[in-house]
C-alpha cells in the first residue's frame, strides 16, 4: 500500500511527497519482523531505483512468500532526483547531513524528522546509496566502527564485494544511518556504481543480498540465494591513491573493479596539450580496487582509487 510519509507544499500548486510502499503478510499477527529499505537521499544516486523496483516486483509476484513487514522508501529527495542534483536544489543542502532532523526546523530538517519517526520500530534498515558522478564504487557495505558488533553479522550476508568498517567522524553523526543506529534501529549503508547511472549487475547482486537478509530475519520464505563472502576491511588496510597533477585521468582498467596485483597499471594522468603522461598510477599492493575515478578531469589531490591491501 502506497502512502505519504511527509509532504510539503511548494509555492506553485505542487507538493513534495515522500512516499513509501508498505507490505505485510495476509493475516499479520503484529509480531512480524520489519525491514525498511531507503534510497534517494542524494538526488544523483539512481541504483536504488532499480533495486526498489525489483524488490517490490518480486513481493507483488509472490505475496505468499511474505512473512514479515517490508517498507520501501524509494526517494527521499524527489526534487534533487528530478534535477539530477545531489542535494536539495533550492539550498544545495546535503540531506544526509540533517538527520535526525527537527520538527520545528527548516524544510529539510522537518522532512528528515518525519522520515526517522516513520522508520523507528524497524528491526533493520538498509540505506542504499550510489556513488556520486565523480567516483565509481564496487558494491560495498559501510559501517561505523561504533556499531560494528551489531551490524557485521548482517553486512556479511549482504552479497557485497567489500565491507568497510571505518572510524567514527563527528560529521557523520548527522547521517540517516548514524541517527537510526543511535535510536535503536540497526542500519546498514550500501554504496555502489556511479552517480546518475544504474549499474544493473551491482543492483542484482544487492537484491540477492536484501532477499537473503529478509530470509534471515524471517520476513521472506524462499530458497536462500547464493551470496558471496565479502572481503572485510578489518583484516587489512585501505590505500588511497591521489592525483599528483591536474590533468585528464585515463583508466587502464576500463570498467573493471575487483582483484588487482601489486604494480598493476591502474591508469595515467595525461596532459592533452603537451601530449605526455604526467603520472602513472599503479596498485601499491595485492588486493582489491573498490573505488576508481569516473570523471576524467582531475586536480592535484583528487582521489583516483582506493585499494584494499590484503595482509
Amino acid at each position, binding site marked *: 500500500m502506497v502512502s505519504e510519509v511527509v509532504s*510539503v*507544499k*511548494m*509555492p*506553485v*500548486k505542487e507538493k513534495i511527497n515522500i512516499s513509501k510502499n508498505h507490505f505485510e503478510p495476509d493475516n499479520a499477527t503484529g509480531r512480524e519482523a520489519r525491514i525498511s529499505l531507503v534510497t534517494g537521499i542524494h538526488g544523483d544516486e539512481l541504483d536504488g531505483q532499480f533495486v526498489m523496483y525489483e524488490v517490490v516486483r518480486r513481493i507483488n509476484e509472490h505475496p505468499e512468500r511474505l512473512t514479515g513487514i517490508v517498507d520501501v522508501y524509494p526517494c527521499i529527495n524527489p526534487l534533487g532526483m528530478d534535477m539530477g542534483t*545531489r542535494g536539495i536544489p533550492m*539550498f*544545495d*543542502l546535503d540531506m544526509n*547531513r540533517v538527520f535526525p532532523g527537527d520538527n*520545528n*526546523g*527548516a*524544510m529539510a530538517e*522537518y522532512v528528515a524528522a518525519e522520515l526517522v519517526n516513520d522508520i523507528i520500530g524497524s528491526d533493520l534498515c538498509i540505506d542504499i546509496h550510489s556513488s*556520486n558522478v*565523480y567516483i565509481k564504487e564496487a558494491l560495498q557495505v559501510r559501517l561505523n566502527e561504533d556499531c560494528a558488533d551489531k551490524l557485521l553479522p548482517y553486512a556479511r550476508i549482504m552479497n557485497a564485494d567489500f565491507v568497510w568498517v571505518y572510524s567514527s567522524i*563527528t*560529521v*557523520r*553523526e*548527522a547521517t540517516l544511518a548514524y541517527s537510526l543506529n543511535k535510536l535503536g534501529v540497526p542500519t546498514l549503508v550500501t554504496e555502489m556504481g556511479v552517480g546518475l547511472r544504474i549499474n544493473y549487475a551491482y543492483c542484482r547482486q544487492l537484491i540477492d543480498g536484501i532477499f537473503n537478509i529478509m530470509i534471515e530475519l524471517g520476513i521472506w520464505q524462499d530458497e536462500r540465494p547464493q551470496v558471496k563472502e565479502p572481503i572485510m576491511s578489518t583484516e587489512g588496510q585501505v590505500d*588511497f591513491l*591521489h592525483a599528483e*597533477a*591536474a*590533468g*585528464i585521468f585515463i583508466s587502464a582498467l576500463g570498467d573493471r573493479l575487483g582483484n588487482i596485483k601489486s604494480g598493476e597499471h591502474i591508469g595515467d594522468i595525461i596532459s592533452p596539450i603537451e601530449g605526455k603522461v604526467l603520472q602513472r598510477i599503479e596498485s601499491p599492493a595485492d588486493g582489491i580496487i573498490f573505488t576508481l575515478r569516473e*570523471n576524467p*578531469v582531475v*586536480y*592535484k*589531490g*583528487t*582521489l583516483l582509487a582506493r585499494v584494499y591491501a590484503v595482509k
Partner: protein
Amino acid sequence: MRREVIFSVEGLYRESNDIIGYTFGHGEKAACIVGAMRGNELQQLYICSQLIKTLKNLEEHGAISHNKEIMVVPTVNQYGVNVEKRFWPIDNVDINRCFPGQTDADAPKQIAKALFDNVRGYSYGIQFASFYMPGDFIPHVRMMETGFQSPSLANLFGLQYVVTRKPKPMDTVTLNYNWQMNGTNAFSIYTNATDNVDEKSARQAVSAVLRFLTRMGIVKYNNHSGYIASVIEEHELMPVKSDTAGFYRRLKEPGDPVYHGDVIAQVIDPYEGEVISDILSPTDGIIFFAHTAPMVMENAVVYKIIRRMHE
C-alpha cells in the same frame, strides 16, 4: 601591506585559484579575518575589500600597533565566485565543511588545510559568514559554545546582538569550530546580505571589526563605540513557520518590534491572487531573521523572533 599567495590550486585549463593573504603590521599574530569561503558570498568579499583598503590606509599612517600583525584573506574560492557557484565548482564541495583539511586529498580539503595552517595561531579569528536559507538577519556576532567561546569579547564588536549556539555535528568541520578548538577566539559576523552588496551593512561590518581591533589594542582608530550587545542563545529564538505556500509578502523587517497576534506576513495564492494565509506573531519581541524570497514553501522558517525583548 604585504600581499602573499598562501596557496594555489593549479587548474587544468583555467588559471590557478590563488588564495591571497594581505598582512598588516609585524610581530605577534593578533587577528585574522577571512571572507568569502563560498562563491556566492559577494557581500563578504566586498567587506574584506573595504577592510583591506582601510587597514592599508591605517598602516600608512602608523596606526597598526607595535608588534601586532593582522591578516585578511578575502576569499579562498575565486573559482566559485567567477562562475557564480556557492561551493568549490569542480566537484561541488563546500570548503567550509572540510576543516581542518588534509594535504593529501581533494582540492577543497587541501585549500582548507592550507588556509588553516596560515590562519591558526592568531589570537582572534573573524569570519564573514552566510546562512543557507534566503533571508536577512540583524547584523550580529555568532559564536559556537565549544567551551572556549567568550561572549564578553564578542560584545566588543559593538553590534546589537551576540548569538551563541551549541555546535551540531556538521559544525565540527567548519573554520570557526576548528579555530576555537586550536586556541583562537573565533567569531562569525553576519550582515544582512550575501549574494548582493549592501553598502550600509558592509560599512557597519568594517566598523565593527575596526572597533574590535581598536579595543584589543591592535589598531589605533577612533570610531563610534557602538552598542552594548544583548547576548542570546539560538534556541531562544522563536521560529515562525509558513502554514502554506505561495507568493510571500513580508510585512516586518529585521529589527522591527512585533506583538502577539500581529500579522507579520501573508501568503498569496500564486494563481488567483487572494491572501490565503495571514502569518501571526506568536509572541511579543523583535524580528531577528526574516525570509526574503518572493515565494515561500510550506513549513519554511520565515521569521526568527527574539522573545519578550523590546527596542
